[in-house]
């Protein structure tokens, strides 16, 4: 990929979990880049490893039982997997921030949202030089400012309210305000709208888009909902069972899905006007990651699978900025396109 240096670069990342029943090979060598200002979607079904990837970037996985086997996560030149907890704590909130799926359970029920916001803001101050640190008063003002930014009505009054007194949409806005209060460069959103009503979903996505423009944020949007990807993301990475199977711009992915899994996903989405009888689904189920299949982990369910799929597929770049991990990438090529096999 040409262009400015990526803000975030995940390279050959391999992660395992030590469980009671064995070693769970959650992530098997993934890699992707995020350009500054870009919005990248990570899409996949439940259990494919997208949340684990996000938490690994933030260093939030408890270290037993999680174990990094290999790889680097480069952010602004630092390898987040090797910087140590102190540096990670300084990075969290100040440079990379995260919002989560269920706003009710992610806010502490016994503290007011003002207290929680101010605490977070004050925690950010520790990595600033002494002269620039905010006082508690200033932190409070900043909290009000952030709540205003996320369009929360009556921000001063809301500081004293408790999470259970707010609606789901409002809570998610509070979490967004919390995440952005440190002016991070990167926002990781882990299924931020899944737990919300459909109407509120749109509002929250709009808000994220607006803040992204105003603050120059880069966003990693994790979701299982292709609709979210279509509306908010510039580029998308498709994950399956801990592996990345396709990586392309959103337009490209929807027009020319190349990996059999991606094609299966898109085919399964109902369209208005399409008869219900023709809804397709991907047969089979996720492989057991305690003993994963060799090579491509999708080959058990893939209509195009062959014997060579037992070996790890090469990553072919079939168009500019469009990579696919599949032996049959050439077969998925549409007429009139050139092929460029080999990473």
């Amino acid at each position, binding site marked *: 990929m040409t262009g400015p240096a990526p803000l975030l670069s995940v390279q050959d990342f391999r992660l395992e979990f030590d469980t009671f029943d064995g070693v769970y090979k959650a992530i098997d060598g993934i890699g992707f880049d995020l350009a500054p200002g870009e919005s990248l979607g990570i899409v996949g079904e439940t259990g494919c490893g997208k949340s684990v990837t996000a938490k690994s970037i*933030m260093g939030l996985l408890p270290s037993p039982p999680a174990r990094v086997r290999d790889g680097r996560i480069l952010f602004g030149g630092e390898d987040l997997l090797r910087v140590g907890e102190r540096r990670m*704590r300084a990075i*969290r909130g100040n440079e990379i921030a995260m919002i989560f799926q269920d706003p009710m359970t*992610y806010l*502490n*029920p*016994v503290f007011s949202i003002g207290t929680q916001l101010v605490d*977070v803001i004050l925690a950010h101050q520790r990595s600033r030089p002494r002269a620039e640190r905010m006082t508690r008063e200033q932190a409070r003002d900043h909290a009000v400012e952030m709540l205003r930014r996320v369009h929360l009505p009556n921000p001063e009054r809301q500081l004293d309210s*408790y999470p259970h007194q707010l609606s789901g949409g409002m809570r998610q806005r509070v*979490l967004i305000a919390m995440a952005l209060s440190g002016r991070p460069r990167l926002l990781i959103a882990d299924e931020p709208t899944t737990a919300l009503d459909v109407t509120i979903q749109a509002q929250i996505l709009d808000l994220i888009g607006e803040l992204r423009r105003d603050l120059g944020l880069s966003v990693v949007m994790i979701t299982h909902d292709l609709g979210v990807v279509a509306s908010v993301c510039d580029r998308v990475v498709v994950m399956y069972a801990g592996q990345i199977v396709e990586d392309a711009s959103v337009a490209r992915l929807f027009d020319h899905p190349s990996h059999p899994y991606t094609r299966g996903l898109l085919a399964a989405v109902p369209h208005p006007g399409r008869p219900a009888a023709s809804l397709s689904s991907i047969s089979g189920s996720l492989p057991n990651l305690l003993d994963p299949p060799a090579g491509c982990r999708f080959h058990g369910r893939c209509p195009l699978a062959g014997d060579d799929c037992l070996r790890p597929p090469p990553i072919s770049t079939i168009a500019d900025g469009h990579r696919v991990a599949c032996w049959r990438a050439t077969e998925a090529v549409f007429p009139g396109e050139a092929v460029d096999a080999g990473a």
Partner: protein
Amino acid sequence: MLRFTLRRAVLMVFMLLGLLAITFTISHIAPSDPAALAAGPDADVAMIERYRVEYGLDRPLYEQFAIYLQRLLTGNWGKSIHTTRQVWDDLVTYFPNTFELVMFSILIAIVLGVPLGVIAAVHQNRPIDHTIRILTVSGVALPMFWLGLMAQLYFALHLGWFPLGGRIEMMTDPPEAITHLLLVDALLRGQFGVFAEGMHHIVLPAVALCFPALASIIRVNRAEMLETLNQDYIVNARAHGLSTFRIVAVYALKNAMLPTMAMIGLRFGWMLGGTVLVETVFDWPGIGLYAVQAAISSDFEPIMGATIVLGFFFMMTNLVIDLIYGILDPRVREQV
């Protein structure tokens, strides 16, 4: 918050009435003639009859209850046979000693118990956790009176570090009463020698009394901390860079304290019961010892008086704990 308090206070008045109904009922199941009991062993028939009329014992039950309530409210709690004083006077004399012992004890249990529970949770499954857990499991099983006896045997008699019993030495005069609490009064009057002596005497009984409560509090707090530390909002706090200390000691602990407080309240009740045992072992001049001596000599009025006082004390404590719960947990304030 105010409405919450008022509601609880009103409820407490009803509970108190219920308590008095119970003590009233108990006094009427006694096989002996209540008038004879009240009049004492050397009363003659005429005196017994006088008591019968005065206590309204020939009237229907509900009238008797009304008379009973009236009697209590006017301070006539009966006469104690074995101390030959008015029960009310005895209770006033002995209650402060029990209060001091129990408060001191629960303080130890909380001050030691909560941090130890946190430590055990944070270092789950490591040696210190195992040690703490062994202590807590055995702590609940040890009989309080036996623990007290063994402590007396070893620390007082064998090692001589602590006195055998009693509130203070026989020769020492207690300080002039302000609050009637010996330790507090000694401090207020600047009599540090007396204070030290009082502390010296309170340690063993307080430790014996607090041991099961300490064990329970550690267990509950540990379990709640483990549960809380797995919650999503803790992940969120970490994701925003809060320090581990703040996350554990403030964010997690405040949530964990809620069920812990319930356990503290429950254990306080057991402690009030246990004070009977510990006071007997250590000759501590409190309500517990008073009640036991009365029970053994079938001296009736003091037992009832002690029961009412201890019951009321427990109710007040529960009220306080409810209020603290309301302060800590905003969700509770809005419930009925």
